[in-house]
């Protein structure tokens, strides 16, 4: 279970996250949405430990992880997928999956993770994770590294960003599969996309660094269409 208690985050006096409290129980699929600049990506980075809150506390399975490093959080079971996947000269897909798994997994194990994200393993296993891969391919490999972590909390920052519509359709299938196969693993996805909002157990609407709405998908989703604060995501839904 992830608990954020009165978390604030400011950069040079500007409040990005403002006294935010949120609980994500085990096994829940939560989509965080809201207008651009509302603090969604910052919230994801705070959970992963890439940013540290100015005030407030973050608890993971009851343990205070507020001051814990990125590495230690990862070891506790927090996984994070970047909005812009990072490129590496020289590291290939297999290297990255092995680092993610934390052990020297064999090629067929690595292939299973790639198959889950819809990539033909033999075409990709030796490919360098560099600019020769398309945005959609990098996104899927990024997701495969998160799957390989076998983490109890997976945070995805705008998986739809920077990829074309066709790749996105395939991508939503990955999340639908994760939803059906889900066990105790909690999933947090930052997204504007209707198809992803539709998979959620819960939807959180974030704007101006605060939780504006939080509830079951069936309660929140209908409200989004008419709500001014959700104008941005709704425009994208059309």
């Amino acid at each position, binding site marked *: 279970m992830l608990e954020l208690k009165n978390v604030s985050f400011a950069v040079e006096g500007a409040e990005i996250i403002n006294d935010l409290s949120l609980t994500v129980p085990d096994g829940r699929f939560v989509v965080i949405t809201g207008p651009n600049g509302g603090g969604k990506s910052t919230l994801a980075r705070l959970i*992963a430990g*890439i940013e540290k809150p100015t005030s407030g506390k973050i608890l993971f399975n009851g343990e205070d992880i507020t001051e814990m*490093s*990125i*590495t230690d959080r*990862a*070891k506790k079971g*927090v*996984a*994070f997928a*970047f909005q*812009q996947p*990072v490129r*590496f*000269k*020289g*590291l*290939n897909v297999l*290297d*990255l999956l092995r*680092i*993610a798994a*934390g052990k020297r997994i064999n090629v067929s194990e690595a292939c299973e993770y790639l198959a889950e994200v819809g990539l033909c393993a033999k075409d990709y296993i030796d490919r360098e994770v560099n600019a020769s891969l398309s945005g959609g391919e990098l996104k899927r490999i990024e997701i495969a*590294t998160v799957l390989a*972590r076998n983490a109890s909390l997976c945070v995805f920052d705008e998986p739809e960003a920077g990829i074309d519509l066709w790749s996105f359709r395939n991508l939503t299938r990955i999340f639908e599969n994760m939803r059906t196969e889900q066990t105790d693993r909690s999933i947090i996805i930052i997204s504007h996309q209707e198809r992803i909002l539709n998979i959620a157990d819960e939807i959180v609407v974030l704007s101006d660094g605060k939780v504006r709405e939080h509830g079951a998908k069936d309660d929140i989703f209908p409200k989004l269409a008419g709500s001014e604060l959700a104008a941005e995501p709704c425009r994208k839904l059309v």
Partner: protein
Amino acid sequence: MVKLDEIQKRLMQEVADLHTVPEGAYNFRANGELAGRQSTENIEIVSKSDVSGIDIRIKDNTKNESVHIPVVLSASGHKETVYNDFYVGENCDVLIVAGCGIDNCGTGDSEHDGVHRFFVGKGSKVKYVEKHYGSGNGTGKRILNPVTEVYMEENSTVEMEMVQIKGVDSTKRETKAELKAGARLVVRERLMTHGEQFAHSIYNVTLDGDDSSADVVSRSVARDKSYQKLDLCVLGNAACSGHTECDSIIMDEGRILALPALEANNVDAQLVHEAAIGKIAGEQLIKLMTLGLTEAEAEEQIINGFLK
């Protein structure tokens, strides 16, 4: 391997991946002396009579054969200059593995200056692998100054892999290539310097024939207080294509000077240079840390991958 001691065997493994005597032709040199030699039906190795070194003659149409000519130095203070000439016939396909390992536990500087000349016949394909390695904790320096000259006949191909990752205090590497029509040269250099090491690498590639091409890529890492200088010069005298790339990571107080030079003397010459020097991107470290590595482990993985 007749005369090699344990240190020399270890060096041999580092520079030539050799655990036992290789198949095919070979010439082992240890502390300035011949430690083993074998010629084959198609590849003949003979000592030079005027200077220190060997002539390697490869017959026309020799395919899928290899030559290993590693050199090891384990006596502190030993200095030598060696001249090795490779005469590769026409339509060959051969692998040449060279390399030098120095172990210096003493106070005198140890130095190996290898001058390699390649005369590659028409339509031949040569893969050349050269590794340099140093070890030992003496105060004497480990110095390697290789000179490589490549003369390529029509439609020949040379792929060169040059690696110097560890332990060489000072190096000046000069590589010169002249290409006739349809010849193709590919160079992959990987270099890492640490401590107070100094490395200077100079490439002069001349594309003289139509449809000749050169692709020279250097990846390097300068750590601690080390210094690297890289001169990459390509001359296009025909309808040719040349690409050079210098990609470097600097760490600690490491410094790198990259000097690309392109000269086109023919309107159909297409020459490109790319260069980038910088520290490891913060996002790369963060990504690997989210996968559970510490910052130091992440750094190591990034460097290992970069130099792979």
